[in-house]
């Protein structure tokens, strides 16, 4: 091989190596960029899936929570219905008990006495229902605590009150009225009755 040929061959060999190096470098560079991009895109994709999982969990939780809420509401409505039914029956039974003197008269006496005491006046007018006016008021008076009668002058109104039972105790001028009817007693006792009913019916 001549010197010239060897020289030109060296030139071309060197150029080939340099050309290959340029292409290789570009390929390496792009491979690195591609790898870096893959990592970034993977993170982005993972974030999308992670967010979707969180949203999905929230949707699932919400559906179950709504079902629980609906069930709780339904349970409460059923309980309220039963409680109301029980209270209605209690009110009805109480009105019926007015007919049973042995049970009712001690209560009526108590309502009258506590009304007189609450009024705190020297005289009191007792107002009764039409049914109770049918009982002899003087008999009723005999049942009232004697020491109380010693301090307070009691008068019996002939006008019946609109109540199933109990009494209204007023000052003689009618300016102060203590309402101790069965309806009022029911209203006053209602919170306690509700607690008792809840405990008895539902063990709460």
């Amino acid at each position, binding site marked *: 091989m001549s010197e010239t040929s060897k020289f030109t061959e060296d030139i071309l060999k060197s150029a080939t190596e340099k050309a290959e190096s340029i292409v290789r470098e570009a390929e390496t560079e792009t491979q690195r960029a591609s790898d870096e*991009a893959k990592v970034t895109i993977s993170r982005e994709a993972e974030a999308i899936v992670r967010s979707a999982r969180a949203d999905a969990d929230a949707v699932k939780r919400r559906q179950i929570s709504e079902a629980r809420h609906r069930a709780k509401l339904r349970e409460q409505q059923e309980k309220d219905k039963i409680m109301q039914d029980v209270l209605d029956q209690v009110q009805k039974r109480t009105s019926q008990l007015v007919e049973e003197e042995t049970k009712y008269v001690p209560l009526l006496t108590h309502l009258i006495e506590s009304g007189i005491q609450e009024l705190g006046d020297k005289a009191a007018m007792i107002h009764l229902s039409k049914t109770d006016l049918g009982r002899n008021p003087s008999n009723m008076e005999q049942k009232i605590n004697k020491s109380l009668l010693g301090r307070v002058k009691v008068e019996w109104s002939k006008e019946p009150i609109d109540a199933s039972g109990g009494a209204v105790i007023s000052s003689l001028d009618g300016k102060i009225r203590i309402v101790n009817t069965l309806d009022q007693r029911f209203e006053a006792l209602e919170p306690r009755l509700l607690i008792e009913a809840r405990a008895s019916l539902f063990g709460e």
Partner: protein
Amino acid sequence: MSGIETVKVIVNAEKQASKMIDEAMTEASAIRKRIDSIIQQQRQQMLAEAKKESAAIAARAGEEGKLEAEQYERESLQALKALVAQAHAKKDATVEKLVTIMMRVE
């Protein structure tokens, strides 16, 4: 080979070498340009897959939530029926108890 011919041969070789390097640089430039579209394509593909997976997760969760909610509703309805039956069985006794409270003189 004369001196002139030798120079010509060397100049040609140099030209050829220069052309090779130019071509290599053009190819390198093309490779660099191509990568942008490859990355963009990769990104679209991976994100599309992620969105598809997300949609599947959402659909699955919605279905699971619906089934669990229905199961809960069924169980709670049964429990409620039992509760109501028990309460009804105790109703008369409860009414009597409350009437006693109403009539009690304290």
